[in-house]
């Protein structure tokens, strides 16, 4: 009596891959022409515009929610839910709302919803991340269903930048389901959300802007860079943006179905100094370091040339960009002279002093740190590169626990960020002046620019402040990496927004026939 125990096992071993492969073939359905798939590198944790913090969520929210204003591709605030706005006084903004705007559940959006949204974020009990930015608001008033008035505690020229947050329906905003199945008035409505996996939104037929041309947008979360790029090459991801490394451009361009575009970006990469440090408090030392860094070499090596040199936080596209600030071209001889003059001669071991350079575990950040360290070694500065997991690194930077660090400012369109980063009162946690920079003249210029309602005069003040900041060498301004995005050729109409938002998907459409 032979029982086929072993034989059965062998057969199963052979059958398993076959069975799985069989199942595989049924899973590959052709792409739905009205569906666009976006590849995300991170999971949007929260889709409530009052609470969302991560870049992934903030970039998607304009599709689900409307805001009073939005930033156009040039980064300037333009009306959205607001039909018009006026400033009866320097501390008051009055908005007239569009009529006939409906939430995805059919209810009409009124001024009460606007007030509800802003009052909710201002309420400390809700611990909204936007609470700090709205601290300048004294009251939100609604004289009638079409009018909203914001009363400020003091004049604040950049206030409209704070009005780009999505408006939440007052009748749903306090329900438990809202964060999971958000209801807004945007061009797309929520359809499905599997956290960590995918978010699906569907065209909203009742949108006041008209129904979007796409039927659905699927946001797929693919954290692994290699996997994401392979998915795009295979045509299973139609849009990649904000997450294509320069080395991958030629790889993606090999696929004829993909249009890969690079264009000047506004992300600002810099090297930060701790100005309370005994060595780095001397501006000559900081300038020497700036002259020692060979930006061209690093841009060629790390970005394959896909970045342009930076001299100030605000990119040339910004209306307040200062074009004539001090720059520090690569000049090791000058750097050595400056270091000699500031009392740091070369010691017998061939170095002048050591600095620690902190960075995150991001691969590009580490490679950049190593290249900078080589440049500084050439002028006698020994650099100890220390990379930390993000939370630890960020905690250290905020606590002022560093000598040198490198980071980037992403999507800066509001020149008031200069106040947030360089004003002497903006030391963390009040702001991001992590190096403890203090220049009374810069403070004065930045303060008056907040109160200045005339754009030309405001610009002059902001330009003067940028000149001083550059001359003081608070940061080593490095470069603005290019924006790189890849769109499947069967779609047209995609337009990148400076903050990285996917807003333009509302006008993207499938090309007629022939792919």
């Amino acid at each position, binding site marked *: 009596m032979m029982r086929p125990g072993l034989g059965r096992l062998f057969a199963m071993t052979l059958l398993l891959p076959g069975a799985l492969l069989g199942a*595989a073939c*049924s*899973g590959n359905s052709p792409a739905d022409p009205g569906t666009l798939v976006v590849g995300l590198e991170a999971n949007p944790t929260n889709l409530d515009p009052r609470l969302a913090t991560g870049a992934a969520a903030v970039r998607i929210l304009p599709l689900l929610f409307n805001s009073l204003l939005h930033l156009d591709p040039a980064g300037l605030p333009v009306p959205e839910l607001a039909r018009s706005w006026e400033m009866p006084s320097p501390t008051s903004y009055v908005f007239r709302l569009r009529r006939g705007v409906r939430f995805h559940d059919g209810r009409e959006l009124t001024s009460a919803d606007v007030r509800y949204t802003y009052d909710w974020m201002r309420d400390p009990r809700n611990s909204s*991340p936007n609470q700090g930015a709205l*601290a300048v608001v004294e009251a939100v008033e609604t004289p009638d269903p079409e009018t909203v008035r914001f009363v400020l505690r003091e004049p604040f020229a950049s206030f409209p930048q704070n009005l780009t947050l999505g408006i939440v329906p007052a009748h749903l905003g306090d329900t438990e389901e809202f964060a999971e199945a958000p209801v807004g008035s945007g061009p797309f409505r929520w359809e499905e959300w599997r956290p960590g*996996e995918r978010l699906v939104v569907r065209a909203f037929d009742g949108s006041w802007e008209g129904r979007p041309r796409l039927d659905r947008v699927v946001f797929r979360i693919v*954290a692994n860079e290699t996997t994401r790029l392979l*998915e795009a090459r295979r045509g299973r991801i139609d849009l990649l943006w904000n997450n294509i490394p320069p080395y991958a451009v030629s790889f993606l361009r090999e696929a004829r179905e993909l249009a890969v575009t690079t264009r000047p970006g506004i992300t600002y990469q810099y090297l930060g100094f701790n100005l309370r440090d005994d060595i780095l408090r001397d501006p000559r030392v900081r300038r020497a370091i700036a002259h020692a860094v060979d930006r061209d070499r690093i841009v060629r090596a790390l970005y394959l040339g896909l970045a342009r040199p930076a001299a100030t936080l605000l990119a040339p596209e910004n209306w307040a960009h200062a074009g004539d600030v001090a720059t520090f071209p690569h000049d090791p001889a000058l750097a050595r002279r400056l270091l000699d003059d500031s009392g740091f001669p070369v010691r017998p071991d061939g170095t002048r002093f050591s600095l620690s350079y902190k960075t995150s575990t991001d691969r590009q950040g580490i490679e950049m740190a190593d290249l900078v360290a080589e440049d500084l070694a050439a002028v006698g500065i020994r650099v100890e590169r220390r990379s930390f997991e993000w939370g630890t690194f960020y905690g250290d930077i*905020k606590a002022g626990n560093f000598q040198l660090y490198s980071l980037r400012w992403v999507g800066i369109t509001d020149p008031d960020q200069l106040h947030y980063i360089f004003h002497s009162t903006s030391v963390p*946690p009040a702001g991001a002046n992590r190096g403890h920079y203090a220049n009374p003249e810069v403070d004065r210029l930045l303060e008056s620019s907040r109160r200045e309602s005339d754009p030309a005069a405001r610009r002059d003040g902001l330009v003067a402040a940028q000149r001083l900041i550059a001359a003081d060498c608070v940061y080593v301004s490095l470069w603005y990496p290019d924006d790189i995005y890849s769109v499947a050729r069967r779609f047209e109409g995609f337009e990148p927004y400076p903050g990285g938002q996917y807003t333009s998907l509302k006008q993207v459409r499938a090309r007629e026939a022939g792919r």
Partner: protein
Amino acid sequence: MSGLLRRLLLLVPTVLGVLTLVFFLVHLIPGDPVELMLGETASRADLSKLRADLGLDRPLGEQYARFLGGLARGDLGRSFFYRKPVLAVIGGALPATALLAAAAMAVALLVALPIGVLAAVRRDRLTDRLAMIGSLLGVSMPNFWLGPMLIILFSFRLGWLPVSGREGAASLVLPALTLGTSLAAILARMTRASMLDVLGEDYLRTARAKGVGPLPVIARHALRNALMPVVTIVGLQFGALLSGAVITENVFAWPGVGTLLVQAITARDYPLVQGCVLVIALCYVAVNFLTDTLYALIDPRVRT
């Protein structure tokens, strides 16, 4: 039965020990969840307000007591970042990880047992050599390398399987192969070694002498006795599969507990970290408990 009961009771201090260790370790990592939550624009007052709301301003001992109190009520708290109950967040990710671990284990067993047995029966012949070289390769390939290589071959060049994601049975194939390969290699070696021990035993000669065919001798007499050490490894490894799927999940965009745990640590989402570790620890001890129980079924001598 009292032996099983004793083992069952021992699980409680084991899990508690793991949780205590994790509780204090996550609080030791530098970085502040409140600052990460409120972003850079938050005022000092907002930060301390939220810290108080979350109970993070209390002494660590008190926070620990609260955590244990909640645990006793089956309440793991709310995730700081998802702003949802921890159990709900983990509940969303656990099935994906369990499916992946089970599939990887199935792949490993279905490949390893026949190969291990075959290698033992054909000892020192070509089949054996090939099997052992193959298993050496299997244990030597790290998941972060094997995963992309499988994708490039099966998805990219051949176009047979999806690159990543979780759509249908097809998308399970490559992650299960990636996660199961090294385990299959270990189990194949284990099975071979264990079979070789057993094949030399007297009772097998007796069985053959009685006229039992070669296949039943192997399947019913030898394999059953050779399985003991293999079951131990399977039990230990299954727990490791659950917690060790992090890299495989990342490569294949597979939304499981491993991915969630990494996210939670990055965000300093203490309740979610503790919840994930609790779930992984529970799975680990449960599987090991089952392994112990399984011994008793396979080998009557273990029933104490």
